């Protein structure tokens, strides 16, 4: 496996590829990703405080009404278009809102999860993190091949053919809108991360870039300040 080149360590988002068949069906579907040098760890107090402040923005009424807002609505519609029921498989922002209501606030977990949660709640656009050193080439979206598996080694699970996945040049890394498969996610040994976001019809590009920039600024405040 070839690691993503060192030159990718730039906070400027790159446009991922989308398989022709998928692009034909969803012309406005995009994947944007960015690689950066960052290590996981506990969140500094400033990040925990930011999460606490964000908790105050989410109330029960808002959690119900957010499905009418443009960005959550766009993801709900896309979920319908790809055969998911957004009332059963919640869109990332609605899932975060429900979690916040159940727990009484956003709980700080670790720097990576907190950065992704902050990006999601501030922009409405979900962001996921991968270990950049385990990637082989740029990221994209495609349908799973027949007999393909998700994950590495013995932990790999078979994927039904046609399942929409986020992939690199070699392997399927995650089912779209789900957490990365075992072996590709961020671990304590990670030194470089690849963050990616999925843009669907109705979501302005600036929100997606803002989501990535927000996550980068939390994970690596120095690089975001330079950008």
């Amino acid at each position, binding site marked *: 496996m070839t690691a993503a080149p060192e030159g990718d360590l730039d906070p400027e988002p790159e446009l991922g590829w989308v398989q022709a068949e*998928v692009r*034909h069906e969803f012309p406005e579907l995009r994947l944007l990703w960015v690689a950066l040098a960052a290590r996981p760890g506990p969140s500094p107090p400033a990040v925990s405080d930011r999460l606490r402040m964000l908790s105050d923005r989410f109330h029960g009424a808002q959690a119900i009404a957010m499905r*009418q807002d443009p960005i959550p*609505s766009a993801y709900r519609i896309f979920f319908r278009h*790809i055969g*998911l029921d957004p009332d059963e*498989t919640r869109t990332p922002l609605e899932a975060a809102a429900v979690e916040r209501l159940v727990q009484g606030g956003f709980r700080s977990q670790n720097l990576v999860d907190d950065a992704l949660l902050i990006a999601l709640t501030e922009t409405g656009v979900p962001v996921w993190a991968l270990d950049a050193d385990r990637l082989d080439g740029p990221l994209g979206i495609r349908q799973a091949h027949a007999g393909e598996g998700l994950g590495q080694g013995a932990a790999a699970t078979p994927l*039904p053919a*046609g399942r929409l996945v986020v992939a690199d040049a070699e392997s399927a890394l995650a089912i779209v809108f789900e957490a990365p498969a075992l072996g590709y996610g961020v671990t304590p040994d990670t030194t470089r991360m690849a963050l990616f976001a999925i843009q669907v019809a109705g979501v302005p590009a600036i929100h997606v870039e803002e989501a990535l920039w927000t996550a980068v600024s939390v994970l690596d405040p120095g690089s975001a300040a330079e950008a």
Partner: protein
Amino acid sequence: MSPIDQSRLIELTPNRLGGPTRVKPRRDAPSTGAEDDARRELRAQVARLERELSRCFVSGFPRAGLDVSVPAAGGPRLLGLGELERLRDELSERLRAARRALALRGAQQERNRVLLERMLLEPGRYKFLQIPSSDLGEGGCGVWRVRPRFGLIGMLAGWWQVKLSSGCPLPRGGRPARPPEP
């Protein structure tokens, strides 16, 4: 993308309200462009229906108890034409049911508001009747009640009045019971 089934050629007629599209079987051979147009139209209809359904859900929440879920089987994938049609039809059916439920609920609330007006005008005709605020389409836990003024005296004298209860119970609950004496 699934191959085109020749027997399932369709002709789509856009519906102004975003409801189900009339689908007519055709005998002539399809072009890929025709299927693309059909899929695009179906996706647009699904989007419209989803937005309408969300609007109904939010306007009816929490009392209407609307079921807006359209169960989906399988994970994320490119849906075939038939699947898109089924999804559109189910969403349309859900939307119809949600609108019907909202209309029924609205009519019931209207009747209750008229009843409350009558209670206020002639409380003696509606002795001990009570209407929760939620049945009037209002928030809170208040209940409108027709009660006798001064208890038993008012009941015997025919002095009736309409009272609005104070609201929701405290989150702490009632006063704690006095501990048993040793």
